[in-house]
């Protein structure tokens, strides 16, 4: 018991500074070494302590932390798949999976086990090497994104100074995996799906990047933690309310992000009714599961990025209310966006290829460029984020929303009324 208290009292478990130990990789080596020196060695018998290999222990501790990271995040899709099925079921007057485990909570696990035992089919006419490689590229890239996302004050793998740039770069590599999967399957549906996907992801990366740029212009940093740090004064300091342009940028970002992760209404690469299953038509068993897991991990990742950039990251709604290092608040905000994505998926039909491209190139990219111009002017007028600038920004957003509602309402009223029968 006293050991436990001593552990809590040690600086690495200091509740007042944040409940979680700092596992920041930049000074992680020092941290792990100090952890060995100050926490582990005093508890060992003296004979062992004298010969304890500190370097090896340091590396082991770091591997342990990495293990927690690698072990926890693949579980995330398990939860998200179940959530998606339950949410979809509620939208459709169903109950969803109910048989495996209480309220069907173990259904995804059972599905995973089933997928592991399924035949691992490799198309004999295809390119075997690329076929085997593609799922790993997609899987690895979608999880590598998590390395730069700050889940809380001290809960992040690394706060490197090009955080958001790294995320953009890594998530672009996914498209390579998609093309590899589609081409190596030697199936025409796969090829169509992968080319659709390539065109879509490359196109939507532009408005995505441009809307991130508006944030970078205001924060003057690419580091994720610094972006969060500028949003620490409660809800009205969140970057979405910083200027009317960031407000627009948020919507462009979010819609483009939905297109990036191939979800309805932009799920053309895997449009079931058109091209069977798109680029992963020929995959089965665990390789298919890797695509599936990567898809849901991606969905969580883009929501987490949207939260970090626009919705305050792990900072609370009120200043200072970042409980447990801000982790619960961050997860709640991210899951809210994930729910929004699910809501859209189970409500909307799918766009056609040309309409998808129209939306991107004719609307989003010009608006995003206009946003950058506007943000520049805004930054000139209000170099600092003050009460006045926030008030003006919120007022403009409010008026804009009312106007949009009126215009949309009028166009709705013009539609033919339902005929009473």
């Amino acid at each position, binding site marked *: 018991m006293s050991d436990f208290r001593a552990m809590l009292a040690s600086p690495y478990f200091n509740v007042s500074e944040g409940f979680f130990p700092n596992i920041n990789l930049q000074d992680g080596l020092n941290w792990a070494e100090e952890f060995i020196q100050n926490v582990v060695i005093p508890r060992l018998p003296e004979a062992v302590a004298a010969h304890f290999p500190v370097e090896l222990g340091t590396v082991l501790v770091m591997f342990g932390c990495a293990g927690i990271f690698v072990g926890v995040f693949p579980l995330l899709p398990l939860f998200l798949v179940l959530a998606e099925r339950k949410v*979809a079921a509620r*939208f*459709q*007057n*169903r109950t969803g999976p109910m048989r495996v485990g209480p309220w069907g909570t173990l259904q995804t696990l059972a599905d995973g086990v089933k997928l592991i035992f399924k035949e691992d089919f490799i198309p004999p*006419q295809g*390119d075997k090497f690329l076929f085997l490689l593609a799922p790993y590229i997609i899987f690895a890239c979608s999880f590598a994104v998590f390395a730069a996302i700050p889940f809380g004050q001290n809960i992040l793998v690394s706060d490197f100074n090009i955080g958001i740039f790294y995320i953009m770069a890594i998530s672009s590599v996914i498209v390579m995996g998609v093309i590899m999967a589609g081409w190596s399957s*030697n199936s*025409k*549906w796969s090829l*169509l799906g992968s080319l*659709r996907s390539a065109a879509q992801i490359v196109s939507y990366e532009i408005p995505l990047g441009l809307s991130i740029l508006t944030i970078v212009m205001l924060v003057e940093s690419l580091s994720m933690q610094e972006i969060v740090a500028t949003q620490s004064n409660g809800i009205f300091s969140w970057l979405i309310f910083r200027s009317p342009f960031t407000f627009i940028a948020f919507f462009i970002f979010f819609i483009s992000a939905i297109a990036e992760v191939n979800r*309805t*209404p932009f*799920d*053309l690469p895997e*449009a*079931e*009714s*058109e*091209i*069977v299953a798109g680029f992963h038509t020929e995959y089965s068993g665990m390789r298919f599961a890797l695509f599936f897991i990567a898809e849901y991990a991606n969905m969580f990742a883009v929501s987490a990025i949207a939260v970090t950039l626009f919705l305050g990251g792990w900072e609370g709604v009120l200043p200072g209310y970042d409980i447990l290092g801000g982790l619960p608040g961050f997860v709640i905000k991210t899951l809210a966006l994930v729910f929004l994505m699910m809501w859209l998926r*189970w*409500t*909307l*039909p*799918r*766009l*056609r*290829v*040309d*309409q998808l491209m129209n939306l991107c190139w004719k609307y989003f990219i010009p608006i995003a460029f206009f946003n950058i111009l506007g943000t520049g002017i805004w930054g000139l007028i209000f170099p600092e984020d003050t009460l006045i600038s926030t008030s003006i920004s919120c007022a403009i957003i409010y008026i804009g929303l009312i106007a949009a509602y009126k215009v949309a309402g009028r166009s709705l009223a*013009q*539609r*033919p009324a*339902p*005929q009473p*029968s």
Partner: protein
Amino acid sequence: MENTQQTESKIIELKPFADEMVVNMGPQHPSTHGVLRLELKLDGEVVREAIPHIGYLHRCFEKHSENLSYPQIIPFTDRMDYVAAMNQNWGFCLAVEKLLEADESRDFEVPERAEYLRVLICELNRIASHLLSFGTYGMDIGAFTPFLYAFRDRERLLLLFEKVCGARLTYNYIRIGGVSEIIPLEPGSITEQNFLDEIEAFLDYFEPLIDVYNELLTKNSIFAERTTGVAVMSAEMALNYGATGPNLRGSGVDWDLRRDEPYSIYDRFDFDVPVAVDVPELGSVVGDCWSRYKIRMDEMKESVRIVRQILAEGLPSGPVMADLKAVRPPKGEIYFRSEAPRGELGFYIVSDGTPKPVRLKGRSPCFSALSALQELSQGLMVADIIAIIGSIDIVMGEVDR
């Protein structure tokens, strides 16, 4: 490496042109509505040509019929348009009854009660059929939820059909000279009253939902983007291809056999025939996919109206079967057409006076509509092909027979 090159050269040999991709859509494909196989010649995503190949569900219905007595053919008609099997039964029975009427020695009339039951059940069947069409069309366009809503409502209808004939899909309910008595609905009995009450409860539940579905899918702007102005079938083209039913009315031709050539007791009911008009708010022009789809949504309302009129009148009492000793039509031939949910269903029967037909031919509305696909789909995209197939609403069981 050498191996790869060999396989590659093989693939190239199969290609007629280097830049044209030939894709087989179907017969196993999520949205070809059964076993339709389309040979798509693609230029990227653009369809140069879509050639439908049919026959995967061919069961020699017409040849079979030549070896069966007339009542034995009715279950085979169930398997034609299995989504609206009641209407198929009815179409066949109407033709045989017409043939029987030519025999002057025989004086028979389909009882009033049977006529009412036929209209009642067939209009409900029409709703069930259009609901399926609505649901699967939503799914083809990418919205999954309407499909489950449609099946939820269709389930209630199937339970009603189960009450009158014991089957959910292949009913064999309408017989030559009346309707089946296997599960009797005694006139004025509690069973009958419960049955009618259940139908009324369903209509009260379902009628407002049509507007909900219109809000959910029909007026959805993405749905409208995908379907309006796509694959416009002009009135002339529709007539040339012999498109009938909702496909014809979707092209702006005001033609419905129930009103223009009333058979059975349709002349006693008051209903409108929905015909497509331009809807500029959504960008729809007459004859596009959206118009064809919208006709079905409107027809469900009209069917509800007809059923409500029957419920208001109540079912007349009396027998449900005419007194036919044996079905042995006189020598002669007959072509009779009726308005099935997918269009004009015709049966051509040649009789030599024996209990079996010499020749029987079914005119399938889906077959005619499908023949227009090749012309409609030229120059469109792969996603549009799906939109067209869904909007002409084919059932392969009827195309192939």
